[in-house]
């Protein structure tokens, strides 16, 4: 199945997640984050390769999945938090699923449209009273219309698209110079999204055995360094 990607015509992140959940034949109320996260991230990567822009929402959901997944690795107190986070995600997914099914029903309805009467019924010109209207009003209306027609500045989620590949490359360059503090990396990022992508890139490099993260003590700075092997 190919995903058609064009700006503004996204199957949203929840749509992709739901599709994966359905493909794995899980009930939306009992999704296995462990099983789904990797597939989801794989999807984002393929979106990215297709050159899709504005991946922020997709990455945010990815980060959420990773977070929920990571809670399982941590001490017991986080079990409750994981359950809560998961339940919240289930609820959102359930509601989304209802509307997606409603959308399908709607799609089936569109077999037959109704039509209005495009015919314009008019009285004879001499019977036609005209509205009160002055020329200055008309000129002003035109000026107003022109102003509105000027392209609205687009609300941009991000000045520049953040690509995970680019951030990975940046990380590798930093690593080549030796260990550094995680904080210094985050200080250089301006957007929440960039932080998320950085986080994802680090996980990716860790998995690939290129990077490791260490911490000397509970409140000691977190160090990022090349993996020893």
């Amino acid at each position, binding site marked *: 199945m190919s995903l058609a990607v064009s700006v503004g015509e996204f199957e949203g992140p929840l749509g992709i997640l739901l599709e994966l959940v359905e493909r794995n034949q899980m009930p939306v109320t009992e999704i296995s984050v462990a099983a789904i996260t990797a597939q989801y991230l794989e999807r984002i990567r393929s979106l990215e390769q297709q050159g899709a822009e504005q991946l922020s929402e997709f990455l945010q959901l990815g980060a959420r999945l990773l977070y929920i997944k990571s809670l399982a690795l941590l001490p017991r107190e986080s079990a409750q938090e994981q359950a809560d986070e998961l339940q919240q995600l289930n609820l959102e997914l359930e509601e989304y699923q209802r509307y997606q099914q409603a959308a399908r029903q709607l799609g089936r309805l569109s*077999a*037959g449209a109704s*039509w*209005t*009467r*495009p*015919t*314009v*019924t*008019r*009285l004879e*010109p001499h*019977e*036609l*009273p*005209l*509205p*009160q*209207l002055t*020329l*200055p*009003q*008309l*000129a*002003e*209306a*035109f*000026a*107003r*219309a*022109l*102003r*509105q*027609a000027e392209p609205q500045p687009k609300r941009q989620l991000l000045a520049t698209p953040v690509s995970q590949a680019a951030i990975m490359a940046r990380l590798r360059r930093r690593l080549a110079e030796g260990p550094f503090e995680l904080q210094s990396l985050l200080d250089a990022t301006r957007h929440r999204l960039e932080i998320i992508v950085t986080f994802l890139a680090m996980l990716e490099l860790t998995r690939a055995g290129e990077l490791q993260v260490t911490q000397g003590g509970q409140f000691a700075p977190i160090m990022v360094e090349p993996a020893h092997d």
Partner: protein
Amino acid sequence: MTKVAASVTALLEAVLFVANEPLGVARLAQIIEHEEATVQQGLRELGESLAGRGLQLTELDGQYRLVTTPAADGPVRRYLQAEARAELSRPALETLAIVAYRGPVTRAQLDELRGVASETMLRNLLQRGLIAEKGAAEEPGHPTLYGVSQTFLQHFGLGSLSELPPLPEADSTEAAPA
């Protein structure tokens, strides 16, 4: 596709409802994809079924059309006159202004300029007699061009469109948000 076989009478009624011209049997047969004899029969039945309603089927030289009954003349006239006298809504006024200053324009051009669908506005202005169709644009599909009407010019006492007032300065209007 809905397979609810609509009766021939219903199909004829629907087509005559949207038609803005009288239609003959041959044409109707083509449109609803039935035999001419069936159409004949359907028209007869439609005419009969309309008895006592607000619409009637008229025939002239074998051309059929759906019109309101004379009994409804009063309300219909009242509606049309009130409609013509009513103040123009802001979107309607803007549409009229664009047609006046930029016309003749097509609906697509208007849509693009205003960023919203302008069809309802156009119909409203046509019905009020403020704009009129001015031929077809020389582009694919030959969409209808709209321009202001004679009535419009008379109403404002304009000899021609070149007498329209110049546009207010963009800055000055911006400065006074009223």
